[in-house]
């Protein structure tokens, strides 16, 4: 047993040394270079480019533009992975019941009052991160996780009973989660449907006008750039993330009486 641990330690030390040697030799290219990679320069120069709309996403934030426009399909599957993980957690605990009146009282009155003050602040900050995802650093996922912190606070400070009373049941949260995913799906094919109806060419995950298709999502709202689909994607993604993370946390925070039935079936351990 001791020899095995020693062997693991030596091989890991060797791995670290070799990786450090490769980095020192320049295996990852020049470190902290003055020049930018070509693909990065292309992203930066076309992220908001009204003089070349067919390569632009008309948003001010390069990271959101890459995540939801240039690599949109990638991010769609990433959202699906998150959804599958949530379904997986719910399946692990299948057969659980949400019981009311188990006598959860939460934390003291001081903590509850200060949390009540915090609730609107966290909601507004999270929503602004999500809705301004195409203008400032942030986006749907970041804003959604920001708001999910609020839900976790709610469950911890006010007890699970309170959350169930306020309507945070897992079936409702799963419904919101699925609605967010359906919204993302509809946004991604919106221009395709419009193209089929109007008899013009269009693509899946199309945002602005591209080569061979003149259709375009709105790029301005009043006096601000809107980024077309990016805004819708961010809003739906934040909905999906906040409900999905809250659902997982509620399932993980279930009391003993509620998961007893799930454990009693015993199929999963054989």
């Amino acid at each position: 047993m001791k020899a095995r641990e020693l062997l693991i330690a030596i091989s890991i030390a060797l791995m670290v040394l070799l990786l450090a040697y490769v980095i020192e030799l320049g295996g990852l290219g020049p470190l902290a270079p003055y020049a930018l990679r070509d693909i990065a320069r292309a992203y930066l120069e076309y992220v908001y480019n009204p003089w070349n709309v067919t390569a632009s996403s008309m948003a001010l934030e390069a990271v959101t533009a890459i995540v939801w426009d240039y690599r949109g399909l990638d991010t769609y599957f990433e959202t699906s992975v998150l959804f599958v993980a949530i379904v997986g957690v719910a399946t692990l605990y299948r057969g659980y019941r949400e019981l009311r009146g188990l006598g959860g009282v939460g934390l003291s009155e001081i903590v509850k009052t200060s949390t009540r003050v915090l609730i609107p602040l966290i909601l507004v900050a999270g929503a602004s991160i999500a809705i301004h995802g195409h203008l400032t650093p942030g986006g749907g996922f970041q804003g959604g996780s920001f708001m999910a912190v609020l839900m976790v606070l709610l469950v911890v400070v006010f007890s699970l009973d309170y959350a169930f009373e306020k309507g945070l049941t897992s079936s409702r949260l799963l419904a919101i989660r699925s609605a967010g995913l359906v919204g993302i799906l509809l946004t991604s094919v919106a221009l395709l449907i419009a193209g089929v109806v109007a008899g013009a060419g269009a693509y899946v995950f199309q945002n602005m006008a591209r080569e061979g298709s003149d259709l375009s999502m709105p790029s301005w709202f009043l006096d601000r750039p809107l980024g077309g689909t990016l805004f819708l994607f961010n809003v739906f993604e934040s909905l999906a993330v906040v409900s999905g993370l809250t659902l997982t946390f509620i399932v993980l925070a279930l009391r003993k009486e509620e998961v007893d039935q799930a454990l009693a079936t015993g199929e999963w351990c054989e």
Partner: protein
Amino acid sequence: MSDYFSLMFTVVLLSLVVNIGIALYGIFIKPSLVKKFIALTIFSDSINSFAIALGFRRVTGSYPGVAVLSDVPRGVEELRHFSTASVDPLPQALVLTAIVIGLAVYMFLTGLIMLYYRHYGTTRVDAARGGSRE
């Protein structure tokens, strides 16, 4: 001065590699599933920081900016200037994806570990090898 910067940057990157090694050691050696889980989060955070650091670039005379246009550009020259003064946005986008997928994996693992604890009464991996089953 420039060499000093290079040296410090390399030191930061190499310390992240050492961090990756220590986290891997924790994943392999620690018997408790919770400690393995913590080591796994440190492992993935180190790799994410490493990827972000690779996207860093230097700008002569000042610091590089974030990859966000602070105002609507009025000409192509402004965009050229933006691309010479901003960091690489691609690693940031990839790390964002990695964080989301990592979070999905962590949620599933947390559920599994909690079920394991409720069944065996411990989070040690050797409990499942028979003997101490309730």
